[in-house]
């Protein structure tokens, strides 16, 4: 076939913890944004991310889905260190990010991000190859080599270097710009790539091409993806596992096939039924979700989903459901799925045991 373009796959010595060690573990991640309510008003906080934990295994694609404002993007930015988190722990391949063994600079060389807005994420006054070569240049790669790497990456993402390398972002289409952004993210030979709504702004046909490209690149460069999206179809296509977020918390996490085929959380079920179906017989007749998400400044007590939930009972207003396993790989935060929770639909203890 073809000679390896760009870089060789990840050198084995970078894999410190072995294949069983999750690439990224997030534990109790919290980010509150202070807001002022007018003059003399009580200071309030927006609980954008309120105790999120999940792990990303090596070589997998983990999808994060949820409505806008549920904290998906904030989670991504916290992981990338673009803003400091209030509390919680981030472990990359077993090492504390920002700790002595893995300072931020070293972590960043191994983790990159692709943003949603393909235009805003490229410097308008820099050529495409200049933007891609910037990262390697920062890390001490000589200019000529950095440019060469940029060009081979451009070729790899499907943009012929002789035609595209010297262009400016405004001379490219949205899909081409997003390919450039992907090439830029790969220029530092990352192990984890965070894709924050990376294909959401693209046309459907271009989106499919970029998704195929992402799948190929994952194979070739042995990447792990954190894929943030609101499009369940895309998540189903690309992701191995999926985490569903609601109001700053993970409410369900598990294999994409299981979660999207037989959701355990009523919110996931509502999200799925809000997707238009190709089958006229399967049309959505009633609105699956009533109203907007509650104000994250003042989230409802107990289960945060209970005001909109079809299964809600009295017990849901008082108890915060923990993220508990329904089977070894599938966890859900819903009292109706937890034995002994007091919810009438909860499975009996003997069944679960």
């Amino acid at each position, binding site marked *: 076939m073809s000679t390896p*373009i760009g870089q060789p796959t990840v050198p084995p010595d970078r894999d410190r913890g072995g294949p069983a060690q999750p690439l990224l573990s997030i534990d109790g991640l919290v980010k509150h944004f202070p807001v002022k309510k007018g003059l003399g008003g009580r200071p309030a906080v927006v609980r954008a991310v309120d105790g999120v934990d999940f792990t990303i295994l090596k070589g997998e694609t983990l999808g994060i889905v949820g409505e806008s404002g549920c904290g998906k993007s904030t989670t991504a930015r916290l992981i990338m260190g673009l803003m400091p988190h209030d509390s919680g722990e981030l472990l990359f391949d077993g090492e504390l990010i920002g700790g002595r063994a893995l300072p931020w600079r070293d972590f960043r060389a191994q983790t990159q991000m692709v*943003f949603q807005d393909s235009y805003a994420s490229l410097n308008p006054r820099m050529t495409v190859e200049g933007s891609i070569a*910037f990262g390697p240049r920062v890390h001490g790669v000589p200019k000529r080599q950095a440019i060469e790497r940029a060009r081979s990456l451009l070729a790899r993402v*499907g943009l*012929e270097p*002789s035609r595209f*390398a010297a262009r400016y972002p405004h001379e490219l289409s949205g899909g081409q710009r997003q390919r450039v*952004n992907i090439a830029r993210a790969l220029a530092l030979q990352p192990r984890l790539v965070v894709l924050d709504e990376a294909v959401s702004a693209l046309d459907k046909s271009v989106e499919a*091409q970029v998704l195929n490209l992402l799948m190929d690149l994952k194979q*070739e460069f042995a990447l792990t993806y954190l894929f943030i999206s609101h499009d369940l179809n895309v998540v189903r296509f690309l992701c191995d596992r999926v985490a569903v977020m609601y109001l700053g918390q993970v409410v369900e996490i598990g294999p994409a096939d299981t979660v999207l085929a037989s959701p355990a959380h009523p919110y996931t079920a509502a999200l799925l039924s809000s997707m238009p179906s190709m089958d006229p017989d399967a049309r959505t007749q009633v609105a699956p979700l009533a109203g907007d998400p509650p104000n994250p400044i003042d989230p409802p007590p107990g289960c945060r989903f209970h005001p909109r939930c079809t299964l809600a009972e009295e017990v849901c207003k008082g108890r915060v459901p923990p993220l508990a396993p329904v089977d070894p790989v599938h966890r859900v935060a819903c009292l109706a799925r937890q034995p002994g929770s007091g919810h009438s639909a909860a499975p009996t203890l003997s069944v679960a045991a």
Partner: protein
Amino acid sequence: MATLAPHATAPLLDVAGGAAPLPDAPDAFMPSRGFWGQVGHKLLRDPVAMTAACVILAIVAVALLAPWITPMDPYRGSMIRRLKPVGDATYLLGSDELGRDMLSRLMLGGRLSLFIGVTPVILAFVIGSGIGILAGYVGGWLNTVLMRTIDVFFAFPSVLLAIALSGALGAGVFNSIVSLTCVFVPQIARVAESVTTQIRSRDYVDAARLSGASTFTILRVQVLGNVLGPIFVYATSLISVSMILASGLSFLGLGVKPPEPEWGLMLNTLRTAIYVNPLVAALPGLAIFIVSISFNLFSDGLRSAMEVKA
């Protein structure tokens, strides 16, 4: 491939079996013109801006060469040949209230007028950009402290501020440059701050942070190029204001002292002759006007040349 329109979509990847074909000569280096090269290219095709630039260059050249090319001694007056009209046989542009040659004085006066008009803007550009970019990029309390301090200066009308500072420092060329710089620093800093704040929140700055670049590198490579343009355009438009303010200070006796020729000062001393020989009295004002409008037109051209299509 080569016949494809430039905006045709890139080839589908799975067709190429995982890897798109590499061009045979990856070293076919096509040097891009670079951003500033493009700006220069566009500017050269702008007739208005180029005319303005030529006028400015001509006036600057005349002013610089004035000591050697003035037709007459600009300091030597003649009591019997006062206020000769424009087009006089000896005095091409007439003579002033002390019988000195207007043309020679206008030529030599351009030196000081341009100097005290342009220098404050250059100084304010450097200082104001520094303050504004720092405040805009760092943000937080530093931004609050710097920008609220700057806001204090906006409480005064700029003419009043220039006069007050000049008056406090005393008359003289150096002091009027200092006071004009103080007038322009806040204005430029404010523009610099707002542009930088905008740029800082762009995803490409975040992407640069993610690549592990230091703050200094990000400022130099990613921010400066996007910020300096708009500030520079704004500063260019301030040159005309600065020249008029400088002339105003001289007019009030706070800048250049007689008998030194300077356009604002000449306007002042000739104002008594406005009913006797209005055309001659208006000449220094005309000179200020031409230079100001040239700088303004040039900065307009620069602004449109630097626009990046979205």
